[in-house]
């Protein structure tokens, strides 16, 4: 068994490969190196901070412009659009201008933030990998890209022949293989302590809460989580965890459950997901 961690996607990404005990540990390490390369690719393509990323190119594009993006970025944007639809607007990656105004994200360029209009579609996915910018606006895929990167890393480990393992991108994780993986969920009231414990097997778990990002800005509480319908910050003492077959879906659904306060939100069942709130 080999476990390594590197900083990516603004957090620590932790990868465990539990291969055949007879297998060379060098093979496990090589598989982990390849999995980190997938994570690094997502980091480069989807960073809001990096002016050369696909996400930044989409953000500065003029309405009507057709962009050729990496197929990974296209898939994340398509999943985000689907989540917006399934959640009736609770999930919306176009809320980035609010996060910039609250100084949760850096301001791209020097201009003013475009207004956040909840019902307005900022982009449309055409045939992969083409994306059309529809209206002025900024997107931030921070609410789904970590999960997507975890899924890519898991697939990379599986392709390399790793029998079982776990990939954890700052709390959004997925376990694979025929063994149980114990997971502790942070207590939202005391994040250094365990609030719940569970066991995963061939499954993803993502958690969202505002205890690390909540702070005062302009005389009120803000956080890195936004209610897509109103553009208002989600500052709740609750922590939402979602179990799902894939981590990108689990990651996105945590925001839907957090904003709705409904652990049985209708979007969950159709995606074979289940949520719990602590």
């Amino acid at each position, binding site marked *: 068994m080999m*476990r*390594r*961690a*590197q*900083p990516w996607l*603004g*957090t*620590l990404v*932790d990868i*465990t490969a539990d291969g055949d005990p007879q297998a060379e540990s060098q093979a496990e*390490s090589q598989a982990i*190196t390849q999995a980190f390369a997938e994570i690094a690719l997502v980091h480069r393509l989807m960073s809001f901070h990096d002016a050369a990323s696909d996400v930044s190119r989409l953000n500065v594009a003029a309405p009507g412009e057709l962009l050729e993006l990496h197929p990974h970025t296209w898939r994340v944007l398509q999943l985000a659009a689907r989540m917006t639809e399934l959640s009736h607007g609770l999930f919306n990656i176009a809320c980035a201008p609010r996060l910039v105004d609250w100084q949760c994200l850096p301001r791209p360029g020097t201009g003013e933030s475009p207004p956040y209009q909840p019902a307005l579609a900022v982009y449309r996915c055409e045939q992969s990998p083409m994306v059309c910018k529809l209206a002025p606006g900024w997107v931030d895929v921070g609410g789904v890209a*970590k999960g997507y990167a975890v899924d890519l890393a898991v697939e990379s480990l599986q392709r390399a022949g790793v029998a079982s393992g*776990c990939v*954890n991108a*700052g*709390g*959004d*994780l997925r*376990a694979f293989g025929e063994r149980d*993986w*114990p*997971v*502790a*969920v*942070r207590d*939202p009231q005391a*994040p*250094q*302590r*365990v609030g719940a*414990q569970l066991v995963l097997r061939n499954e993803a*778990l*993502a*958690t*969202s*809460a*505002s*205890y*690390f*990002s909540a702070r005062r800005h302009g005389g009120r509480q803000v956080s*890195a989580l936004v209610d897509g319908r109103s553009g208002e910050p989600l500052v709740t003492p609750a*922590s939402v*965890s979602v179990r799902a077959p894939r981590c990108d879906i689990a990651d996105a659904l945590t925001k839907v459950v957090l904003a709705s306060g409904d652990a049985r939100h209708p979007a969950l069942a159709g995606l074979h997901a289940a949520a719990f709130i602590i």
Partner: protein
Amino acid sequence: MRYRHLIPLAACAAGAPAFAAQYLNAEQAQKLMFPEATAFRQQDLALSLPQMQQVEKLAGLAARSVNWRVVGAYSGDQLLGYMVLDDVIGKFELISYAVGLNPDATVRQIEILTYRESHGGEIRLPAWRHQFVGKSARTGGLAVGDGIANISGATLSCTHLTDGVRRIAAVAQVALKK
């Protein structure tokens, strides 16, 4: 290492970490970063005052320390690069990590060695940190319970770590670049 002069040697009674993970020891990290190396030589750095000022200017951060733990990686007599070992403190976490650098001071790879959280305010207590700092990086022999494989929670940002890497890149630029 850097904190050692601040603490009496007997101070080690602070509590065990809340969440912890042991990833690699320094030897494993250097082999990963420089698989082609035939020799590793410890060549710790002590920065001069003008070098400290240059580091601060380049990194845009306080240079923080005069002394840096550096390992040179060689194939025969040829220098392949360096690995710099460091620790950073976050909100309540202590991270030991290694930065692999090319001879031209560009960053090649970053590997986390150990990650430890304190239950509460202990992270600010030198005694709490002292039980871990330096040990894992040097020897790797620190025992940590591995009952809990993974933590799920709100994303904890790693700004302190990225600042630390930026500082090390500046140190390398000023004092190691060939």
